[in-house]
């Protein structure tokens, strides 16, 4: 009888343990930062390998500058049409302390480098093969663009899909004023 209750207790414990694991997993699932509604959360940190030059780029090293963070992939069609727009914004605003950073994700590095050469991109680009950094930001597809102010906070809304020149300018100005 004692053994029977012991076995039942063990079963209940195992079930409760599994339930606890499930709850923990759901609660700790990385859904990315919440934006909009005046929220200015800290931009998730990252340090990734550069595609345009040897070495790594640490987001923290850009503190004090406004960062336009663009998530892209070489196989993504809208990424191709917005690339010249991002390059133009980088050239126009870099004198004001603005840096455009491209984060190439879920892509072959060779393809990404060809993309950079083809579109003559001169702003820094990094490689996030598994897309882990994108997950921290809550990226749901490509391209997506975020604006980080001088204090390392995300400002305004993310731009999902191809970024227009108007949205790019508005995002940069908001970040500069923040």
């Amino acid at each position: 009888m004692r053994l029977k209750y012991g076995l039942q207790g063990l079963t209940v414990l195992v079930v409760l343990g599994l339930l606890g694991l499930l709850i923990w997993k759901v609660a700790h699932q990385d859904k990315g930062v919440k934006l909009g509604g005046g929220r200015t959360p800290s931009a998730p940190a990252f340090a990734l390998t550069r595609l345009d030059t040897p070495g790594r780029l640490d987001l923290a090293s850009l503190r004090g500058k406004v960062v336009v963070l663009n998530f892209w992939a070489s196989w993504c069609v809208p990424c191709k049409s917005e690339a010249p727009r991002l390059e133009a914004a980088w050239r126009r605003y870099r004198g004001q302390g603005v840096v455009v950073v491209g984060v190439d994700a879920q892509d072959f590095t060779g393809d990404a480098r060809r993309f950079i050469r083809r579109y003559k991109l001169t702003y820094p680009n990094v490689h996030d093969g598994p897309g882990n950094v994108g997950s921290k930001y809550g990226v749901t597809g490509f391209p997506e663009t975020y604006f980080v102010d001088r204090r390392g906070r995300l400002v305004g809304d993310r731009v999902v899909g191809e970024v227009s020149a108007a949205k790019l300018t508005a995002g940069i100005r908001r970040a500069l004023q923040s």
Partner: protein
Amino acid sequence: MRIVVGLVLVLVLAAPAAASERHPTLGELEGEVMCPTCKTTLDQSTAPIANRIRRYISARIAAGDTKSEIKRKLVIQFGPSVLAEPSKHGFNLLAWVLPFVALGLGAAVLAWLVWRWSRRREAETPAVAGAASLDPELERRLDDELARFDG
């Protein structure tokens, strides 16, 4: 004789695996590699990146890469999550070991329950036999009743 049969069996089973490692096909790798954007295996996806990975695998097969080499190169590009099966190292080893542990535990519990059930049956059998032998007075009355019923 048994050893020879065992060795032949091992060779027969290991040969296809070795051939698959040395000369992988796109078809088998499609089932072992994930599409990073759609989170399904390549054979279930027509996403642009899935098509690109398929082309990459075909090129690597043509270049003579083994299955392990192709997978290792894909992991460098996309991380370990590009593989459909978890690796057999570190924490991921649990995913391989736990099902067998659970199976073993289940079998042990089942065996114990069967053993307990059969012991209980054995214990109950004499009681049933005992119940069959009636009190002499009751037996006499039962015989009388049966005799009257027959008569």
